[in-house]
Every structure is written in C-alpha cells, then in structure tokens.
C-alpha cells in the first residue's frame, strides 16, 4: 500500500520530490520533538502559576475597589447586550440601521463610562483603574468613539465644500503619518506642559483621546473605500427618489458602504485592542502593564514568562471574540439580504 503510493508519487513528480518531502517531514518532526516536550514540561512542572493566581484581582480590576466590582460587571453586560442588539438590528432592517447601530454602541459605551466612574460619593478615581478593566474600557471607548468620528471624517473627505474637505484630509493624513507611540508621548509629555493644571484631563482620558484620534483616521480610510465601492447607480437612484444628501447617505449609501468594510474595520479594532498596551507610556497599568508589574513582587520575582503568557492568552481570547462578532455581522448581513430577496419575489 505504502510502496504503491510512493511509487505513484515518484511517477507523477519524480524521485527528488519524494526525497524533499521525506526530508521536510523528518525536519518538522525533529522541530516538534525539540520544542514541544520542553514546552510541555515547562508548562506542567517548572512554571509557577502563583504569580497569576495570587494577582488575579490586579489582572482583572487592578486597584478598582472589589466591593464595587459589580459596576464593571454591569457595564460589561450592558455593552455586550448593546453589541448583540446592534448585530440583530443590523440584520433586521437594512436601511438606516447604520445610524441606529452606532447610537446603540455609543450610548452603551458612554453609560458604562459614567457607571464605572460613578457620581458623587461613589466616584472611583481613574488612577485606580487598570488591568483587564482598563484594557476593555480603553478599547471599547476608543472603538465606540472612533467609528462615528471615522465615518464623519470619511464623508467630510468627499464633501463638496473645500473647507470641510481639506480639514478632513489634513486630520486623516496628519494622524496617519504619526506612529501611535508618538501621539501617546505627546499626550503624556506635551499636554501637561501646554494646559493649565485645572484643565488638564486625567491620564485615562488622555489615552482615550489619543487612541480614538488614531483609530478614527484609519476607520475613515476604510469607510472611504466602502463609499467608493458603492456604484454610481445607487447615487442616481437615490436622487431620482428625491432624497436629499443626508437622507441619501443615511438610507442608501452608508448601509451598503459600511457592510462592505466590516471586516476591514474589525481588523482595525483588533489592532486597536492590542495597541492599548502602549498606554504604559502614559504610566497607566492595563493588562500588559499588570503582567509587567506583578513580577516585581518579591515573592514572584523572575516569573515573567508565566505572567506574560497569561496576558497573551487573555488578549488572544479577546481578539478571537472580536473576530467572531465581525463574522456574525457578516453572516447576518448576508442572510438578511438573501431573505429580503426571497420576500420580494
């Protein structure tokens, strides 16, 4: 059997091909043999996970008071529910769902932020925010704010008014021409020097501002791609129906444009989620920062492999989750389009 298969392969591709295959197989097996057993041995025997288990509170909440932990939990539930509803809504109605979806997301994000910060005597100062909590806050707020801002910038770039157009182009190109780390450095070092003490925003807000600005420029370019992909016939048809510019964009153009660029935008948001780790430049301690910080406790000195691996797994799960949301957006979009087509006939 084996020899027959080998013979067939030799007849089809020649003997050198079989030899190359064999060499590659042996090489791959050796590579696995060299790397996997030591890795497993380290995972099960050498690794001391107490650096993670003892510091779970720091990893998740950082210094956010544990007795107020229900607030982040409620905020998370609210945001997840809003995203879920947005997905359904996007599927249920094709036209005008874009604007409403954005409002859902924006509303949920802002409400969560107010809930987390608290009001009056329940205020939790932002210097206590950190860990996974801060990673999610930064990512969610920057995503929630940069999506509408990006759409506005993209539309502004196509505007007939020169002032609007050139402002949008300048904003997009300036931000895209700077690395995120530079923007954050400016937020960290220039903002405090430029603004008087009383006006100086909190570091968390500075980080959100920088991340939003950065992400919006990229979202704007993604959306512009989507706008360009909408056929000229759609514009003509919308105008023929007597729609004004605003109604045309909201009801006809943007729903199609946005649907086309969902994968690209989600890709941008996944990058943004990972980029939140750069806020350690601002002295903030998000998930990655906690992993870097806890290994300095005397009892966990030198356990950085465990801490970093744990952080990597959490990032992986988060980014995987975002990809799934994006896929369900696409799937439902496709389903609804198909469903409507059937309805019409």
């Amino acid at each position, binding site marked *: 059997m084996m020899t027959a298969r080998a013979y067939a392969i030799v007849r089809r591709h020649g003997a050198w091909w079989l030899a190359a295959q064999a060499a590659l197989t042996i090489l791959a097996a050796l590579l696995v043999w060299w790397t996997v057993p030591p890795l497993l041995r380290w995972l099960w025997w050498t690794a001391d996970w107490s650096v993670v288990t*003892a*510091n779970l*509170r*720091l990893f998740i909440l*950082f*210094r956010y008071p544990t007795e*107020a932990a*229900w607030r982040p939990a*409620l905020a998370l539930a*609210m945001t997840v529910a*809003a995203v879920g509803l947005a997905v359904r809504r996007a599927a249920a109605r094709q036209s*005008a769902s874009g*604007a*409403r979806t954005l*409002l*859902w997301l924006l*509303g*949920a994000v*802002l*409400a*969560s932020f*107010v*809930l987390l*910060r*608290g*009001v*009056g*005597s*329940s*205020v939790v*100062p*932002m*210097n*206590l925010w950190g860990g996974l909590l801060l990673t999610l806050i930064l990512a969610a707020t920057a995503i929630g704010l940069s999506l509408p801002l990006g759409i506005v910038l993209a539309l502004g770039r196509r505007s007939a008014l020169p002032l609007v157009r050139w402002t949008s182009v300048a904003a997009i190109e300036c931000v895209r021409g700077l690395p995120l780390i530079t923007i954050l450095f400016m937020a*960290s*070092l220039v903002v*405090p*020097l430029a603004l*008087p*003490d*009383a006006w*100086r*925003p*909190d*570091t968390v807000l500075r980080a959100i501002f920088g991340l939003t600005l950065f992400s919006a420029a990229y979202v704007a370019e993604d959306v512009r791609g989507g706008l360009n992909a909408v056929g000229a016939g759609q514009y003509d048809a919308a105008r023929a129906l007597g729609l004004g510019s605003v109604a045309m964009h909201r009801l006809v153009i943007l729903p199609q444009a946005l649907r086309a660029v969902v994968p690209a935008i989600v890709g941008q948001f996944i990058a943004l989620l990972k980029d939140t780790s750069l806020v*350690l*430049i601002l*002295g903030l*301690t998000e998930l990655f920062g906690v992993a*870097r*910080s*806890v*290994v*300095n*406790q*005397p*009892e966990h*000195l*030198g356990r*950085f492999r465990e801490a970093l691996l744990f952080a990597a797994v959490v990032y992986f799960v988060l980014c995987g989750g975002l990809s799934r949301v994006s896929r369900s957006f696409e799937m439902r979009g496709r389903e609804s389009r198909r469903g409507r087509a059937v309805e019409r006939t």
Partner: protein
Amino acid sequence: MRIRRFTTALTNGTLALGLLAVAACTAANPDAPADAPVADAPGDPGASTSITTTGATTSSVPADTGVTTAGASADASAAPAPASSGGLLATVRQRGRLNCGVQDKLPGFGYLDPSGEYKGFDVDFCRAIAAAVLGDATAVDFKPLTAQQRFTALQTGEVDVLVRNTTFTLARDTQNGLDFSPTTFYDGQGMMVRADLNVDSLAGLDGANICVGSGTTTEKNLGDAMRKAGAAFTPVVLEDTDQVFSAYDGGRCDAVTSDKSQLASRQTTLADPTAHVILDLTLSKEPLGPAVLQGDAQWADVVNWVVYGVIAAEEFGITSRNVDTFLTSEDPEIRRLLGVEDALGEGLGLTNDFMVGVIRAVGNYAEIYDRNLGPDTPFKLPRGANRLWTEGGLLYSPPFR
C-alpha cells in the same frame, strides 16, 4: 421623523439606564447623599444635566486623583517656582493628599502587592513625608512614573515629590531644575559573574560577553570602566531587565552588569544562585534620593528633614515600637527630635512632634531598610555603604537643634 424620535428615545433610555445604575450604587453606599436623582431619571431630558451637576458638586472626594480635581494645586503650577511660605507645603495641606511620584516596577523599592497596595523602600519615604506633613501616612496618591515622565511630572506639578530611584547628578540638579534631598540609598553599578570563571577584577573579564540593559547610563559606565581596565569585551545589549537576566541565566553572557541592589535581588531568581558571585567593585556611584522642584526652599527643607529624621531615629535607637518610651527621655537631642522641647517643627512649617508621627508610621531608617531589602526579604541586601556613619557607613544626619 419616526427614526429621529426613536433615536432620541434610545439615547434617553440608555442614559437613564446608566443613571439608574449609578443612583443604585450611590444608594448602596452608606454615606451617600440621600438626594440621589432616581425619581426624575427615566426619559427626562434633564437626565444628562443632572449627571454632570451631581458629578461636579461632589467631586471633592478625598480619594480623588490630583489631576482631575487639581484646583487646589493650580496656583502651584501657574507659578512654577513659589519661593515663600505660600508654596507647595500649603498646597499639599490644603489638598489633604500628597502626590508622590514613584517607580512601580522595581523589586524592593517600589511595586504593587497583590492587594493593590504600593510597597517598597521608596514608597515608605512617600508615606513618611505624608505622615510629617498631613499627620496621616496613608494620605498619599502614588503616581507611578516612567523614567521619561518623571521630571516632567515634577515640573508640571503633577507630583509634589519624586521618590523614584533617581540618581543625584549635577546635570539633573541644574538643567532639570530639581533640588535633591539627602541620599536615602547609596547604590552603585556592580558586576555579577559565573563563579566557575574565577574572576575577581574587570581585567579578568578580557574577551567576555557582558549582558547589559540598553539606553541607560549603565551601558556607558560599563564601556568606560572596561576601557580603563584595558579589557576588551562584547556587550550583549538587551531591552529590559527581565531579558537581561534571562539571557545571563541562559548562558548567553559570562557576566552581567547592573546596579548592585538589582544584582543582589536578581541573583535570588537565577536557576542556581550559588553559581554566581557579585564582584567586590563599583563601576559607578549611584546615590538615590528624593527630589523636589527647585525654588521652593520650605518644601525642600521639609523633605530633607524627614529623611534626616529617620536616620537620626536609627542613631538614637528609636523605633516604631518604642517611640512612646522616648517621649520621656532626658537626652536633649532626642527631646528636640521628637518635639518634646524647643520648636524645631514649627520652623519647618510642621507640628513640633512631626517625627513622632513619621516614626510611628514607617519606623526609623533601619526598619524601612529591613522591611523592604533586609535579611527577612528575598533580597537579603547587606547594608554596605547604607550603614550609619557610626558603623562605617555614609548615613549621617546633621544635628536636630
């Protein structure tokens, strides 16, 4: 039209939901004001305004960050060099909290423990200053700062004092506009080598690979010292401390150089700590101590004398446990240190017994040292130059009189 109405309802609904939750948690808090705006929340157009006004009127919660509610310190940054008694001391008093710039990633000196508390040698000096100025060692807002941020944070008034293992150098004293307090820790760059190399001098490291962190003065000092010793070497430059010691432990280098305090603490984490020795030589002087902004002599004096105070306390044998028994001491210098006689504290703008509070809260120098770096910690760092002058070290407090 229909759509607009729907979206308005939607935003109002979301706001109301958030507000309800906030109101609920305000109500759950025992000392919350009773006028939580629950009743008029749902769908009320005034809902959003009531959020902002409530937040604004009660934002003077003591635990708030210095950055958002920095109204009190506004005058300090408007005039970056307040010269007289209206300076930082008054600002800190008024604020009721000390903003202390620290390091949060340096074992033994500044780190977060699993319960979210800042701990460490430098952190204890922040607490000591808070105890002296505010009478409460817990009234500190710790601001973890990166090496790049630290001087800007001091210059902009974001922190009142910097206790972040900062080396006292001439350039920093002049160009960065700082004033350094007395050194709290005499560190120095050292060299750790594999014991089986049988090396006891830099010259013996001729041709060696030496692991060193990048972008620090450590790298430059290494080059200078090896050139002076006439030894050729290959630097293995790595980005951060974990990588440096991981590479050394993995055998990529014959030796590793860093501050001696760090060498000692990292030696305990190596696979076989006994297979390495720290050479008995110093490549550079690294006196570490608190720093304040130049131009506020009163504030600088306060920080200076708190540091001197804990050193003097060790000299007199006053500890956090026995401080009360010294209040009846007959020794005039002890009586002055603890404020039993004379009015030395008032001269600083503090209470006369400020050192009693400091010693009760953090102890004397030896207690601070032992708690964070001493024999009961994994570091087991010998006192070395950080002994009292009476024991052959460099710690020397001017007299309290």
